[in-house]
């Protein structure tokens, strides 16, 4: 057994600290929901006006086509309205709606998936029989890494994420872009937390490869 495995203790890493909620914002959310449930027509319109644009932006991050994003938001809002009675008021209404939009977007992506899944293997590092890097990883110079902060480079990173095979693109969107935690990601993808970690790990390795090729000008 290698020393890294031998040294690993039982049990996983500590859980992240829970998010702090503002009681007055929660009270406003509960009141809005109560008005919708009481049949106040304008209250639902208010919900759309308050959260609709942000939720559409979430859907657009998952869907490649604008009309798909709009359909996702429509489906999600209808299903939110139907299930509004189950909103407990323990979390922000936006958070609750966000999860519904994410679920609707994932359903849409599953329905859209037609072409055969592209393999990620070509983007993963390879090792010699002795376990060392076959291709020496390249270090990016400081100007290149400073570019990460610039908006045009952010656009490039968005473009590189879009190149990942679908299951890997989705896990990066959920964990690093939408900031769902591992348990939430496992729930929306209906896979185990370990599977989320493994998939994210491979996605990040692939993203590193794409970024290295982009920043060092070594794209094939």
């Amino acid at each position: 057994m290698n020393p890294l495995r031998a040294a690993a203790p039982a049990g996983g890493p500590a859980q992240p600290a829970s998010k702090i909620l503002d009681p007055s914002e929660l009270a406003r959310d509960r009141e809005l929901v109560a008005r919708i449930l009481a049949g106040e027509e304008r209250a639902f319109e208010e919900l759309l006006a308050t959260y609709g644009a942000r939720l559409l932006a979430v859907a657009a991050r998952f869907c490649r086509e604008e009309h798909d994003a709009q359909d996702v938001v429509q489906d999600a809002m209808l299903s939110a309205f139907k299930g509004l009675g189950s909103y407990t008021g323990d979390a922000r209404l936006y958070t609750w709606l966000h999860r519904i939009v994410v679920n609707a977007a994932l359903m849409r992506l599953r329905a859209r998936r037609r072409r055969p899944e592209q393999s990620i293997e070509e983007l993963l590092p390879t090792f010699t029989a002795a376990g060392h890097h076959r291709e020496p990883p390249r270090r990016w110079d400081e100007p290149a890494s400073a570019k990460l902060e610039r908006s045009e480079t952010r656009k490039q990173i968005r473009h590189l994420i879009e190149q990942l095979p679908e299951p890997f693109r989705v896990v990066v969107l959920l964990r690093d872009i939408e900031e769902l935690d591992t348990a939430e990601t496992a729930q929306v993808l209906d896979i185990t937390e370990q599977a989320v970690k493994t998939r994210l790990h491979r996605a990040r390795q692939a993203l590193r490869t794409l970024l290295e090729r982009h920043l060092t000008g070594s794209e094939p």
Partner: protein
Amino acid sequence: MNCKDLRDKLYRYFEGLLPNAEEEAIDRHAEACPECAGLLKQWSETTCRDLLDFIDDYVDGTLAESVRTVFERHLAICTQCVDYLDGYRKAIDGARALGKAERAAPPASMPPELIAAILAARKEKRS
């Protein structure tokens, strides 16, 4: 052969890429130098592939101290893994910075026709 030469040739030594004479020189040096003998042992026990399995927990700072010590011992002798780790962090930071910027950006307004479609569909479902 001195300690620095040995360090520079570690990768090629373990990959069998060195001429026999140089391999023998490394073995002879390690027999006389406990520090380099330890380095050879360490290099043979923990590989770059092993390190990759623990990289996420290392980056997140959730790696147990005992594992982190082994991880960092490998980093101290392997510039390839230092460079790999550096790029891996940048990939994560890049994705997270993108997420932060996209979430903070003011969203485009909700198209009125979409609002109308949702309200109409809702009415239809209720009736």
